[in-house]
Protein backbone atom coordinates (compact mmCIF):
# COMPACT_ATOMS: atom_id res chain seq x y z
CA UNK A 1 0.00 0.00 0.00
CA UNK A 2 2.85 2.28 0.93
CA UNK A 3 4.50 1.54 -2.38
CA UNK A 4 1.37 2.34 -4.37
CA UNK A 5 0.95 5.61 -2.51
CA UNK A 6 4.54 6.48 -3.34
CA UNK A 7 4.28 5.44 -7.00
CA UNK A 8 0.95 7.04 -7.89
CA UNK A 9 1.56 10.01 -5.60
CA UNK A 10 5.07 11.28 -5.10
CA UNK A 11 6.70 9.60 -8.09
CA UNK A 12 3.85 10.48 -10.42
CA UNK A 13 4.01 14.11 -9.33
CA UNK A 14 7.74 14.15 -10.04
CA UNK A 15 7.47 12.65 -13.48
CA UNK A 16 4.12 13.85 -14.79
CA UNK A 17 5.05 17.45 -15.58
CA UNK A 18 8.18 16.55 -17.49
CA UNK A 19 6.40 13.70 -19.18
CA UNK A 20 3.57 15.90 -20.42
CA UNK A 21 6.13 18.38 -21.75
CA UNK A 22 7.87 15.48 -23.48
CA UNK A 23 4.59 14.45 -25.10
CA UNK A 24 3.99 18.04 -26.24
CA UNK A 25 7.50 18.30 -27.71
CA UNK A 26 6.94 15.00 -29.49
CA UNK A 27 3.64 16.27 -30.85
CA UNK A 28 5.35 19.44 -32.05
CA UNK A 29 8.14 17.46 -33.72
CA UNK A 30 5.64 15.23 -35.46
CA UNK A 31 3.80 18.27 -36.73
CA UNK A 32 6.66 20.55 -37.75
CA UNK A 33 9.65 18.48 -38.76
CA UNK A 34 10.39 17.88 -42.42
CA UNK A 35 8.53 14.83 -43.56
CA UNK A 36 11.62 12.83 -44.14
CA UNK A 37 14.94 13.00 -42.37
CA UNK A 38 15.90 9.59 -43.69
CA UNK A 39 18.15 10.73 -46.50
CA UNK A 40 19.96 13.27 -44.37
CA UNK A 41 20.37 10.84 -41.46
CA UNK A 42 21.73 8.12 -43.72
CA UNK A 43 24.29 10.44 -45.24
CA UNK A 44 25.34 11.92 -41.93
CA UNK A 45 25.17 9.02 -39.51
CA UNK A 46 27.92 10.32 -37.24
CA UNK A 47 26.88 13.95 -37.44
CA UNK A 48 23.31 13.14 -36.44
CA UNK A 49 24.64 11.28 -33.39
CA UNK A 50 26.83 14.24 -32.42
CA UNK A 51 23.86 16.58 -32.74
CA UNK A 52 21.78 14.35 -30.48
CA UNK A 53 24.66 14.14 -28.00
CA UNK A 54 25.05 17.91 -27.90
CA UNK A 55 21.31 18.30 -27.44
CA UNK A 56 21.00 15.55 -24.85
CA UNK A 57 23.79 16.41 -22.41
CA UNK A 58 22.54 19.76 -21.07
CA UNK A 59 18.84 18.95 -21.46
CA UNK A 60 16.75 18.00 -18.46
CA UNK A 61 14.57 15.13 -19.58
CA UNK A 62 13.88 11.97 -17.65
CA UNK A 63 14.02 8.52 -19.16
CA UNK A 64 10.25 8.35 -19.53
CA UNK A 65 9.73 11.76 -21.09
CA UNK A 66 12.61 11.37 -23.54
CA UNK A 67 10.88 8.33 -25.05
CA UNK A 68 8.11 10.07 -26.99
CA UNK A 69 10.65 12.62 -28.28
CA UNK A 70 12.92 9.85 -29.56
CA UNK A 71 9.96 8.03 -31.07
CA UNK A 72 8.87 11.14 -32.93
CA UNK A 73 12.40 11.67 -34.27
CA UNK A 74 12.66 8.05 -35.45
CA UNK A 75 9.29 8.36 -37.11
CA UNK A 76 10.69 11.29 -39.06
CA UNK A 77 13.54 9.11 -40.26
CA UNK A 78 16.33 9.72 -37.76
CA UNK A 79 18.60 6.71 -37.51
CA UNK A 80 17.84 4.68 -34.35
CA UNK A 81 21.47 4.96 -33.24
CA UNK A 82 21.22 8.74 -33.00
CA UNK A 83 17.91 8.41 -31.17
CA UNK A 84 19.57 6.05 -28.69
CA UNK A 85 22.35 8.57 -28.12
CA UNK A 86 19.66 11.05 -27.12
CA UNK A 87 17.92 8.46 -24.92
CA UNK A 88 21.21 7.81 -23.10
CA UNK A 89 22.76 11.25 -22.87
CA UNK A 90 19.49 13.10 -22.28
CA UNK A 91 18.40 11.57 -18.96
CA UNK A 92 21.88 10.83 -17.57
CA UNK A 93 23.13 14.38 -17.59
CA UNK A 94 21.84 17.89 -17.38
CA UNK A 95 23.21 21.27 -16.41
CA UNK A 96 22.38 20.62 -12.75
CA UNK A 97 24.02 17.21 -12.42
CA UNK A 98 27.13 18.53 -14.16
CA UNK A 99 27.52 21.20 -11.49
CA UNK A 100 26.90 18.67 -8.75
CA UNK A 101 29.48 16.18 -10.01
CA UNK A 102 32.02 18.97 -10.17
CA UNK A 103 31.25 20.19 -6.64
CA UNK A 104 30.70 16.91 -4.81
CA UNK A 105 33.45 15.00 -6.57
CA UNK A 106 36.00 17.09 -8.48
CA UNK A 107 36.79 18.44 -11.92
CA UNK A 108 38.68 15.31 -12.83
CA UNK A 109 35.61 13.19 -12.03
CA UNK A 110 33.49 15.54 -14.14
CA UNK A 111 35.78 15.09 -17.14
CA UNK A 112 35.67 11.31 -16.74
CA UNK A 113 31.89 11.41 -16.23
CA UNK A 114 31.16 13.48 -19.33
CA UNK A 115 33.65 11.88 -21.68
CA UNK A 116 32.67 8.34 -20.71
CA UNK A 117 28.97 9.10 -21.16
CA UNK A 118 29.71 10.68 -24.53
CA UNK A 119 31.93 7.84 -25.70
CA UNK A 120 29.64 5.06 -24.46
CA UNK A 121 26.52 6.69 -25.91
CA UNK A 122 28.15 7.07 -29.33
CA UNK A 123 29.47 3.50 -29.19
CA UNK A 124 26.04 2.13 -28.31
CA UNK A 125 24.52 4.30 -31.04
CA UNK A 126 26.81 2.78 -33.66
CA UNK A 127 26.13 -0.66 -32.24
CA UNK A 128 22.36 -0.20 -32.56
CA UNK A 129 22.61 1.04 -36.14
CA UNK A 130 24.77 -1.97 -36.88
CA UNK A 131 22.20 -4.32 -35.28
CA UNK A 132 19.43 -2.87 -37.43
CA UNK A 133 21.55 -3.20 -40.56
CA UNK A 134 22.59 -6.71 -39.62
CA UNK A 135 19.01 -7.84 -39.00
CA UNK A 136 17.91 -5.94 -42.07
CA UNK A 137 15.01 -4.27 -40.28
CA UNK A 138 13.92 -0.72 -39.79
CA UNK A 139 13.14 0.75 -36.41
CA UNK A 140 9.40 0.59 -35.77
CA UNK A 141 7.84 3.21 -33.62
CA UNK A 142 4.28 4.10 -32.79
CA UNK A 143 3.56 7.77 -32.71
CA UNK A 144 0.07 8.89 -33.34
CA UNK A 145 -1.07 5.61 -34.78
CA UNK A 146 -3.17 3.96 -32.15
CA UNK A 147 -1.34 0.72 -31.55
CA UNK A 148 -3.39 -2.31 -32.41
CA UNK A 149 -2.25 -4.28 -29.38
CA UNK A 150 -4.62 -2.51 -27.06
CA UNK A 151 -8.26 -1.69 -27.80
CA UNK A 152 -9.10 1.96 -28.06
CA UNK A 153 -11.53 1.88 -25.11
CA UNK A 154 -8.83 0.63 -22.76
CA UNK A 155 -6.41 3.27 -24.03
CA UNK A 156 -9.00 5.95 -23.48
CA UNK A 157 -9.78 4.61 -20.01
CA UNK A 158 -6.10 4.56 -19.07
CA UNK A 159 -5.59 8.08 -20.41
CA UNK A 160 -8.49 9.32 -18.31
CA UNK A 161 -7.27 7.55 -15.17
CA UNK A 162 -3.76 8.92 -15.68
CA UNK A 163 -5.11 12.42 -16.24
CA UNK A 164 -7.26 12.15 -13.11
CA UNK A 165 -4.26 11.00 -11.07
CA UNK A 166 -2.11 13.84 -12.38
CA UNK A 167 -4.78 16.45 -11.64
CA UNK A 168 -5.47 14.96 -8.20
CA UNK A 169 -1.78 15.07 -7.26
CA UNK A 170 -1.43 18.53 -8.72
CA UNK A 171 -4.18 19.93 -6.50
CA UNK A 172 -2.93 18.12 -3.42
CA UNK A 173 0.48 19.55 -4.16
CA UNK A 174 -0.95 23.06 -4.52
CA UNK A 175 -2.72 22.77 -1.20
CA UNK A 176 0.34 21.89 0.81
CA UNK A 177 3.16 23.99 -0.52
CA UNK A 178 4.13 26.10 2.46
CA UNK A 179 7.72 24.82 2.32
CA UNK A 180 9.38 24.04 -1.00
CA UNK A 181 11.63 21.46 0.64
CA UNK A 182 10.61 18.00 -0.50
CA UNK A 183 11.60 15.08 1.64
CA UNK A 184 15.39 15.16 1.35
CA UNK A 185 15.54 11.37 1.34
CA UNK A 186 14.54 11.23 -2.28
Amino acid at each position, binding site marked *: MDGLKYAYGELLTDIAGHFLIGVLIAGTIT*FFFPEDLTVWANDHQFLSMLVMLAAGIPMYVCATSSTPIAAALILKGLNPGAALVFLLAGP*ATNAATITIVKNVFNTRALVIYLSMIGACSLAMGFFVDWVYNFLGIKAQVVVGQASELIPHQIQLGAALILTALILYNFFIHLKKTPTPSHSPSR
Partner: protein
Amino acid sequence: MNIVYEILKESWTIYLDVSVYMLFGFLIAGILYVFFKADKIKRYLGTGRIKPVFLAALFGIPIPLCSCGVVPVAIGLKKQGANDGAALAFMIATPESGVDSIAVSYAMLDPVLTIIRPVAGFFTAVCTGIAQNFWGKATPAPSIKETGG
Protein backbone atom coordinates in the same frame (compact mmCIF):
# COMPACT_ATOMS: atom_id res chain seq x y z
CA MET B 1 -4.75 28.61 -33.86
CA ASN B 2 -5.04 25.75 -36.28
CA ILE B 3 -1.40 24.83 -35.69
CA VAL B 4 -1.90 24.71 -31.93
CA TYR B 5 -4.90 22.47 -32.44
CA GLU B 6 -2.96 20.12 -34.72
CA ILE B 7 -0.07 19.91 -32.26
CA LEU B 8 -2.44 19.17 -29.40
CA LYS B 9 -4.13 16.51 -31.51
CA GLU B 10 -0.79 14.83 -32.24
CA SER B 11 0.13 15.04 -28.57
CA TRP B 12 -3.18 13.53 -27.50
CA THR B 13 -2.72 10.48 -29.75
CA ILE B 14 0.76 9.99 -28.28
CA TYR B 15 -0.69 10.34 -24.80
CA LEU B 16 -3.33 7.72 -25.60
CA ASP B 17 -0.68 5.28 -26.78
CA VAL B 18 1.38 5.64 -23.65
CA SER B 19 -1.08 5.96 -20.76
CA VAL B 20 -1.67 2.24 -20.24
CA TYR B 21 2.04 1.59 -20.01
CA MET B 22 2.60 4.55 -17.72
CA LEU B 23 0.05 3.20 -15.25
CA PHE B 24 1.64 -0.21 -15.44
CA GLY B 25 5.12 1.24 -14.97
CA PHE B 26 4.04 3.13 -11.87
CA LEU B 27 2.54 -0.06 -10.46
CA ILE B 28 5.88 -1.85 -10.82
CA ALA B 29 7.64 1.19 -9.38
CA GLY B 30 5.40 0.99 -6.33
CA ILE B 31 6.22 -2.69 -5.84
CA LEU B 32 9.95 -1.98 -6.25
CA TYR B 33 9.74 0.83 -3.75
CA VAL B 34 8.67 -1.62 -1.06
CA PHE B 35 11.31 -4.26 -1.72
CA PHE B 36 14.18 -2.29 -3.10
CA LYS B 37 14.93 0.84 -1.18
CA ALA B 38 17.96 2.83 -2.16
CA ASP B 39 19.14 3.18 1.43
CA LYS B 40 19.26 -0.59 1.82
CA ILE B 41 21.60 -0.93 -1.12
CA LYS B 42 24.57 0.61 0.61
CA ARG B 43 25.58 -2.48 2.54
CA TYR B 44 26.17 -4.32 -0.73
CA LEU B 45 28.58 -1.66 -1.90
CA GLY B 46 31.69 -2.72 -0.05
CA THR B 47 35.22 -2.03 -1.11
CA GLY B 48 36.83 -2.83 -4.42
CA ARG B 49 37.23 -1.11 -7.73
CA ILE B 50 34.97 -3.16 -9.95
CA LYS B 51 32.39 -5.19 -8.04
CA PRO B 52 30.67 -2.27 -6.27
CA VAL B 53 30.44 -0.44 -9.59
CA PHE B 54 28.64 -3.40 -11.16
CA LEU B 55 26.28 -3.71 -8.22
CA ALA B 56 25.54 0.01 -8.10
CA ALA B 57 24.74 0.06 -11.82
CA LEU B 58 22.61 -3.06 -11.52
CA PHE B 59 20.59 -1.60 -8.65
CA GLY B 60 20.24 1.70 -10.44
CA ILE B 61 18.75 0.39 -13.69
CA PRO B 62 15.20 -0.48 -12.52
CA ILE B 63 14.83 2.39 -10.04
CA PRO B 64 12.70 5.11 -11.61
CA LEU B 65 14.28 8.37 -10.52
CA CYS B 66 15.05 11.35 -12.70
CA SER B 67 18.53 12.80 -12.91
CA CYS B 68 17.92 15.40 -10.22
CA GLY B 69 16.02 13.04 -7.94
CA VAL B 70 18.94 10.63 -7.96
CA VAL B 71 21.48 13.18 -6.79
CA PRO B 72 20.62 13.12 -3.07
CA VAL B 73 20.48 9.33 -3.17
CA ALA B 74 23.87 9.04 -4.89
CA ILE B 75 25.45 11.51 -2.48
CA GLY B 76 23.89 9.57 0.37
CA LEU B 77 25.45 6.36 -0.91
CA LYS B 78 28.82 8.05 -1.12
CA LYS B 79 28.44 9.37 2.39
CA GLN B 80 27.61 5.92 3.65
CA GLY B 81 30.80 4.49 2.27
CA ALA B 82 30.28 3.68 -1.39
CA ASN B 83 33.32 4.66 -3.43
CA ASP B 84 33.30 7.38 -6.08
CA GLY B 85 32.98 4.99 -9.01
CA ALA B 86 30.01 3.21 -7.47
CA ALA B 87 28.29 6.51 -6.67
CA LEU B 88 28.85 7.78 -10.23
CA ALA B 89 27.65 4.49 -11.71
CA PHE B 90 24.49 4.69 -9.63
CA MET B 91 24.03 8.30 -10.65
CA ILE B 92 24.14 7.33 -14.34
CA ALA B 93 22.29 4.01 -14.34
CA THR B 94 19.32 5.24 -12.31
CA PRO B 95 18.06 8.06 -14.52
CA GLU B 96 18.96 6.36 -17.79
CA SER B 97 16.34 3.71 -17.32
CA GLY B 98 13.66 2.62 -14.92
CA VAL B 99 10.70 0.30 -14.93
CA ASP B 100 8.43 3.12 -16.05
CA SER B 101 10.60 4.11 -19.00
CA ILE B 102 10.98 0.47 -20.02
CA ALA B 103 7.19 0.15 -20.08
CA VAL B 104 6.86 3.34 -22.12
CA SER B 105 9.66 2.26 -24.47
CA TYR B 106 7.81 -0.97 -25.08
CA ALA B 107 4.75 1.06 -25.97
CA MET B 108 6.42 3.50 -28.34
CA LEU B 109 9.64 1.97 -29.60
CA ASP B 110 10.40 -1.46 -30.96
CA PRO B 111 11.79 -4.45 -29.03
CA VAL B 112 15.39 -3.79 -30.10
CA LEU B 113 15.44 -0.31 -28.60
CA THR B 114 13.42 -1.39 -25.56
CA ILE B 115 16.03 -4.01 -24.70
CA ILE B 116 19.10 -2.00 -25.64
CA ARG B 117 18.19 1.01 -23.47
CA PRO B 118 18.71 -0.59 -20.06
CA VAL B 119 21.64 -2.62 -21.40
CA ALA B 120 23.34 0.48 -22.78
CA GLY B 121 22.59 2.38 -19.57
CA PHE B 122 24.22 -0.39 -17.56
CA PHE B 123 27.22 -0.44 -19.91
CA THR B 124 27.70 3.34 -19.71
CA ALA B 125 27.38 3.35 -15.93
CA VAL B 126 29.86 0.51 -15.44
CA CYS B 127 32.44 2.01 -17.82
CA THR B 128 32.23 5.41 -16.15
CA GLY B 129 32.39 3.99 -12.64
CA ILE B 130 35.39 1.79 -13.37
CA ALA B 131 37.17 4.63 -15.17
CA GLN B 132 36.60 6.85 -12.15
CA ASN B 133 37.94 4.22 -9.75
CA PHE B 134 41.08 3.71 -11.78
CA TRP B 135 41.86 7.19 -13.05
CA GLY B 136 40.00 9.52 -10.75
CA LYS B 137 41.17 10.95 -7.48
CA ALA B 138 39.19 9.77 -4.49
CA THR B 139 37.31 12.56 -2.82
CA PRO B 140 36.33 12.71 0.84
CA ALA B 141 32.73 12.02 1.72
CA PRO B 142 30.79 15.25 1.35
CA SER B 143 28.82 16.99 3.98
CA ILE B 144 25.33 16.84 2.51
CA LYS B 145 24.13 20.08 1.14
CA GLU B 146 20.73 20.61 -0.33
CA THR B 147 20.89 20.64 -4.09
CA GLY B 148 18.31 22.28 -6.23
CA GLY B 149 16.62 20.85 -9.25
